[in-house]
């Protein structure tokens, strides 16, 4: 049994959720990985260093430069017949392409896999994580998106797989990349951070998110948000943690001014330690928090920044 993992990369390094997908694939057998991009051979070389990977396929084409689903799915379909499983991390990028490839192979994809029981049997959350379903696939080639927060990523180095060029194929031209408007931040990515601090509706506006910054700086944290804060326009969409946003499981998750709606809990309740700061002591977030502080966040946040500095 050999699995193929499509890796998300930034042109030179392999992203952490992709390394979690490799970890999931290692439960299934031998692991080959695919790096698709344009002028991204450095990323393919980096993929060769992932422990456990035995082969890297590198596909270089302008059509792969921006991760468009149509050409990437065509590439996966060309390669899939050599494999028993095709995997990708369940990021926005992964979820965009994998089902498209699966349908072309007449396979029912399995989304957000959180556990591997055996080659055919997988555990995945349903209903915003309020239930866990164990499902068995009857398809010849299984297509899986992997919930990165459920698998510890493989290390970035330690392996020594060779890089081979993927076979060239005819690519569809149904879509065209126009532009990207990406959030710029010096902070770690939400899905890779050891500490995440999220603000909710209680932050009242985007300006107030600045109160979180000195704390995030001090803890090396990523900054996230609840759906309510994103919908209200306080912060960009890529901050959203929850059922339909990003799924995170850091060592420490700090929820500030977040009530704890089911759809938010779905995105963070597997965090190792949860802290909640909210002035409403009845807020449901306290039911999952290891440490709860009932306080006005506008008083508590400056205090927290000062206390972290004082006791550092």
């Amino acid at each position, binding site marked *: 049994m050999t699995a193929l993992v499509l890796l998300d990369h930034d042109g030179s390094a392999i992203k952490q959720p992709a390394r979690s997908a490799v970890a999931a694939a290692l439960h299934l057998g031998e692991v080959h990985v695919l790096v698709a991009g344009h002028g991204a051979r450095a990323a393919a070389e980096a993929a060769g260093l992932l422990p456990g990977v035995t082969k890297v396929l590198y596909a270089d084409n302008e059509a792969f430069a921006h991760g468009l689903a149509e050409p990437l799915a065509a590439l996966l379909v060309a390669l899939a017949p050599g494999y028993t499983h095709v995997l990708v991390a369940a990021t926005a990028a992964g*979820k965009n392409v994998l089902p498209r490839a699966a349908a072309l192979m007449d396979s029912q994809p399995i989304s957000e896999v959180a556990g591997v029981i055996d080659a055919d049997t997988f555990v995945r959350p349903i209903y915003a994580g309020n239930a866990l379903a164990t*499902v*068995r*696939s009857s398809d010849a080639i299984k297509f899986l998106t992997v919930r990165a927060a459920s698998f510890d990523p493989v290390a970035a180095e330690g392996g020594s797989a060779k890089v081979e060029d993927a076979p060239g194929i005819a690519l569809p031209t149904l*879509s065209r990349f126009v*532009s*990207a408007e*990406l959030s710029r931040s010096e902070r770690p990515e939400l899905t890779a951070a050891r500490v995440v601090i999220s603000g909710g509706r209680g932050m009242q506006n985007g300006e107030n998110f600045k109160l979180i910054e000195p704390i995030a700086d001090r803890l090396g944290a990523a900054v996230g948000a609840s759906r309510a804060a994103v919908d209200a326009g306080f912060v960009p969409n890529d901050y959203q943690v929850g059922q*339909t946003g990003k799924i995170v499981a850091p060592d420490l998750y700090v929820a500030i001014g977040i009530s704890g709606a089911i759809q938010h809990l779905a995105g963070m309740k597997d965090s190792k330690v949860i802290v909640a700061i909210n002035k409403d002591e009845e807020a449901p977030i306290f039911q999952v928090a290891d440490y709860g*502080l009932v306080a006005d966040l506008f008083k508590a946040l400056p205090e927290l920044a000062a206390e972290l500095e004082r006791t550092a």
Partner: protein
Amino acid sequence: MKILVPVKRVVDYNVKVRVKADGTGVETAGVKMSMNPFDEIAVEEAVRLKEKGIATEIVAVSLGIAACAETIRTALAMGADRGILVETDVDLQPLAVAKLLKALAEREQPGLMILGKQAIDDDMSSTGQMLAALLGWPQGTFASKLVFENGGLTVTREVDGGLETVALSLPAIVTTDLRLNEPRYASLPNIMKARKKPIETLKPADLGVDPAPRLTVLKVVEPAKRKAGAKVGSVAELVQKLRTEAKVI
């Protein structure tokens, strides 16, 4: 341009779901059912495109048991023109849904199909992508903005790092993200009017599709419950506990 909008009947998002004691699924008997929230956004977008004169007709489609007709009625009350119910008792999984929708697309020849990006019951987030694949159409998933120009469509998408814009040829598939619009409530007169709008009922066999599931659900269980911890009295106590007890900072 005709727009086809598939709508799914799901457990209402406000309901706290309960796993059945026998581990076969979640309790749906006597539970409030509603249109999947992302599908409401899809219907709303189609109605706005009709109001702008871009769409000429909106067809709402639902697949499943007879009660899915209620979900179609909701779409009709929001402004869809007619409905199609593909009635079956089979547990429909996304691949089967995509195949049924493909057959309907071939029959109806829409210029655009707008779907929710995921259903809040199975959380699969895959039907739109699979439908696009089967039809050989481009896809604009997780859309937060649609612009029609020069006979094509540009879609602004919510991606991992922010926003991305892609240009698609038509016909195309769009799946909706939360920020695309805020769906309207149907007015009472429109709810009354919707009762007179036609709903056609078909069976999967009429569309030449075998809807048999590919995934067998072996069991459904409740996840391990997280225990509530302790309240702390001050910021100083919190920091001290995180340092010495939890050891995470």
